[in-house]
Every structure is written in structure tokens, then in C-alpha cells.
């Protein structure tokens, strides 16, 4: 399936490739990645459900990529979404029936055709926009603090493309917003503002030259990286790379976002240092998706775990407390 699509103008998830897409480079990467995918599928297949009993093997396996055909079940299991689904008083179906608030319905409906309009599954598939609405509206009704935040439409859009299942997408969204990501989408977006400060400190520690350069030019991190946090790299990095990141995010938590961010910055260190003004710097950030090492998602995932030093969830949590925002 993937081999064929590498020659198509549309990627395996239905997104149009950019006009300047480097087919040669991609073909080169795919010829080896196909072998990786085949091997990963075999390995997961032999272990079956036993894999979930061995945490260290599981972590290694997840970092090497969850095969796409078992992704839905694996994400549900490793993220805890399965558990909250089973222990919930309400089923997804009953929650869906409670959609009634007209102002929520209206703002979500405006964003439906504005979510991945260039993706063939969203523009021509009659069910996907409807499923997107159901997941977003059901979620908005059962979480009053978040309700609907723009950006979630892209996350659910990708969840639907990966799982093709409305109900799993809902529970995965719920676990992401309510457990994995801290307060990003609430009305004050305090979690986002905090994490931008955490990123600032981490860049200062890992790439002091880059840190100084970015401060000299005067780019607030929010300008270059809001989408990284809010959309979890959807629309920022190639889709396959995003799903590989999400594999780890669902299992290891939000610290993964910082590993990805620091790796992206490290990969582009020279380019960033060559910029001399804000516009150039923003361009550099926006074009990170075209870096060969980012397209080669397998290599990229390898790189993110090569960052030395302590980037554990507890380190990140301490920094979050340090930079925690008072109520604005």
C-alpha cells in the first residue's frame, strides 16, 4: 500500500504532497522504511497481547513504531483511553445524544470544511466531516472548561485518519486533552503559556547559542512553536512522522513534545544561526517539515531519544511548577 503511494501526488493518509516535494529523497527513504515496517509488523504479531505485559519491551517497540493496522487498539491500550472508556458512567453513544448547545454547534460547524480541505478523505469522503463534528461536539459538551478550542479539529482529523473510528477518536482525544496535555486548551491556555517558558529554559540549556540568537532577533517562542504544542505537530511535520511521535506521546506522555522540539531545533541549528531577522527566522521554523531527517521518521524518532540529560516527566513537571502561570 505504501510503496504505491510513494509515487502518488497524495500521501498514504490522503494529503496532497507539497509542490516542491522531493520524490527522489522520499523514494530513497521509503525503500528502506518498507523493510522496517514489515519487520515491525512481524515482531508485534509474534508477541500479540503479551507485549503489554513487558513494559521495557513495550517502550522499545513503541519507539520503533506501532504498525498502522493495530494502531487504534494499541493507542487505546497504552494511553489509558481504554480504561477511562470502560470505567465511564456514560457510553460515547449516550454522550453524543446530548449535543444540544447551539453556539457550540455553530463554531464547530464553521471549522468542519476548514479542517484539512486539501485532504482527499475530508474533501470527498462524506462521512469524515460528520465524524469530526460528532467527536468535537461530544467532547465540547462533556468538558465545559475546554469546550471547543481551535486546533483540536486538526488533532481529531488526524485521529480519524489513523483510526477510521469515531468512538476511539473520542476517547483518545479525551485522554490527550484531560490527562496527557496539561491545560493547553482551556480558555486561558495557561498550560501552553507555561510550556512555552519551559521550552525556553530547555533550549537555553541544550542549545545556548540558538537561545541567544532567537532572543537577539526577538522571536517569542509562541510565534514559532504554538502549533507544535496545540496541534501536536499536525500540519507541522509530515503525517507519518506525526503518527510516530504520537505513538510515543500516548505511552510516555507530554515530555515527548519537548524531545521533538529540541531535536527539531538542534537539526536546524546552523540554519537558525544564519538568520538575521524575524521573517527569516519564522520561515526557517515553518520549513522544518522539509528537512530530510524529518521526512525520515524512523531516523528522526531515533534522534529524539539520543538527546542526553534528564528529560523525564518529573523534570518537566518541576519546570512547569517553576513557570506555572498565575491566573491571568
Amino acid at each position, binding site marked *: 500500500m505504501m510503496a504505491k503511494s510513494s509515487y502518488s501526488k497524495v500521501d498514504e493518509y490522503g494529503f496532497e504532497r507539497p509542490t516542491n516535494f522531493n520524490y527522489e529523497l522520499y523514494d530513497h527513504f521509503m525503500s528502506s522504511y518498507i523493510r522496517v515496517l514489515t519487520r515491525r509488523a512481524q515482531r508485534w504479531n509474534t508477541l500479540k497481547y503479551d507485549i503489554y505485559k513487558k513494559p521495557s519491551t513495550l517502550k522499545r517497540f513503541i519507539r520503533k513504531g506501532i504498525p498502522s493496522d493495530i494502531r487504534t487498539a494499541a493507542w487505546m491500550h497504552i494511553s489509558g483511553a481504554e480504561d477511562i472508556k470502560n470505567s465511564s458512567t456514560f457510553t460515547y453513544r449516550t454522550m453524543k445524544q446530548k449535543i444540544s448547545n447551539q453556539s457550540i454547534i455553530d*463554531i464547530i460547524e*464553521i471549522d468542519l470544511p476548514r479542517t484539512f480541505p486539501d485532504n482527499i478523505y475530508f474533501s470527498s469522503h462524506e462521512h469524515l466531516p460528520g465524524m469530526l463534528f460528532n467527536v468535537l461536539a461530544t467532547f465540547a459538551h462533556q468538558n465545559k472548561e475546554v469546550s471547543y478550542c*481551535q486546533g483540536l479539529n486538526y488533532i481529531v482529523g488526524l485521529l480519524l485518519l489513523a483510526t477510521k473510528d469515531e468512538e476511539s477518536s473520542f476517547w483518545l482525544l479525551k485522554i490527550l486533552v484531560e490527562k496527557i496535555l496539561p491545560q493547553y486548551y482551556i480558555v486561558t491556555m495557561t498550560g501552553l503559556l507555561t510550556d512555552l517558558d519551559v521550552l525556553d529554559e530547555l533550549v537555553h540549556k541544550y542549545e545556548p547559542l540558538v537561545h541567544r540568537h532567537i532572543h537577539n532577533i526577538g522571536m517569542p517562542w*509562541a510565534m514559532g512553536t504554538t502549533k507544535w504544542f496545540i496541534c501536536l505537530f499536525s500540519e507541522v511535520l509530515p503525517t507519518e512522522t506525526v503518527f510516530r511521535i504520537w505513538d510515543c506521546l500516548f505511552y510516555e506522555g507530554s515530555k515527548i513534545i519537548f524531545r521533538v522540539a529540541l531535536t527539531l531545533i538542534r537539526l536546524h541549528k546552523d540554519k537558525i544561526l544564519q538568520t538575521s531577522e*524575524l521573517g527569516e527566522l519564522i520561515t526557517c521554523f*515553518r520549513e522544518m517539515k522539509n528537512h530530510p531527517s524529518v521526512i525520515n521518521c524512523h531516523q528522526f524518532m531515533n534522534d529524539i531519544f539520543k538527546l542526553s540529560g534528564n528529560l523525564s516527566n518529573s523534570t518537566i513537571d518541576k519546570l512547569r511548577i517553576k513557570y506555572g502561570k498565575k491566573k491571568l
Partner: protein
Amino acid sequence: MSTRTGAAQRPNGSTQGKICQFKLVLLGESAVGKSSLVLRFVKGQFHEYQESTIGAAFLTQTVCLDDTTVKFEIWDTAGQERYHSLAPMYYRGAQAAIVVYDITNQDTFGRAKTWVKELQRQASPTIVIALAGNKQDLANKRMVEYEEAQTYADENGLLFIETSAKTAMNVNDIFLAIVDELDENVEVPGPNSNKLSKFSLLNKTVGVLSKALFAKIVFPISINRKDSIISCDPSL
């Protein structure tokens, strides 16, 4: 970058000229058409389904006015209320702002007024603010009267114009009216360079100018569509 020389090249052969660059920010409720206005101005395109903006997008456009090359650095921000706290970093230091509302939606006009107030309080005191009533092509579904918006604009010293990103109506005009307004303080040298300011600044509300007048003004301006999204010339 060759665009700059290209843009500065006048038919009469003079390539000498002033180059100015300024920072412009678009603000307004979600889905009023901020990104669409920028896309129309920068690329001459319109998308029926324009993706919602998260955070902000940065684009540039260079236009040539007589012997002056004007480079716009445009920040197109996200409209949803909760992204509000990120807005100051985009309007801080901006020389101009376009506050957009949708003429078919009264709430968006209220939101536009809130933005204007915030800019008047927090942005640079010399910032030029233009109010754009967008989706003029949907005038049959109009909910905000032209006169109401114009009165408000007059009272607050704003440029005002109704636009349509879809049909391109008045889109270039609003950007150029801003240049005019900004240019007021700067003496532009050259034979016919003051023509623009004379016209559109007779009245702050550029919307009252007739189409014919605008056609005259806009005609000699070469808008460089090749210099589309982000092409930053560090030498500028």
C-alpha cells in the same frame, strides 16, 4: 533577492527609489476572513475553505508605488477568543492594523470594536488602524449597516472600507490606503509621488471614494505576485 529590484523598476527606467518596510497585523473574530484577505493580497487567490489559523501566520508582500518600494510584513492572527493572550506580541511594534469583521454577522462587529479599543490602549500610539467589513459579496445577508460602521470609524479615526476577499473588491485598496496614511508623515520625493496621499486622505474614510478614483490610484501600482508567502530579503 531579485524581486526587490524588479519591483523597484519603473517603466521610465529609473530604478532609484525609496524602500520602506512595515509591520501590519490582522485582528478579528474567527472566520471573518483575515487569512483570506491576506491570501488575496499576497497571492491573488481565494479558497472557499480556508484553514483556520492556529497561533499566527507570517507573510510578506512587496508593492511598488511610484518610486517607492513598500514591503509589508503581515501577521495574520488566530481569531478565537482564547488565542487573545498571544495577540500582543503580534501588534506590539506594528505600524498598522487591519481589524476585520464579517458584514453578515453582528457579533463580529462587536468583537472588532473590542480590538480597536485594545489597540488604542496598548499598541503604538501612532498605529494606523483600518476597519474592514469583509464578505461584501454577501451584502444580501448583511447584518451590519455600512453607515453604522462608517460612523464608528469616523468617531474613532479609523480608515474604513468594505471588502470581499472572494471577489477581490477593495482588497488591494485597503492595504494601499494604509500605506498612504503611513506615508503622510514621510515626504516622498519624485515627480508624481504625492498623488496618492492627496486623494485618499481628503477623507479618512477611504470607503467614500468612488471606484473610478480608486482605479486611477491603483492602476500605476505593480503588485508583485511572485513575491508571495515569506520571501524575506534581509537587505531590506
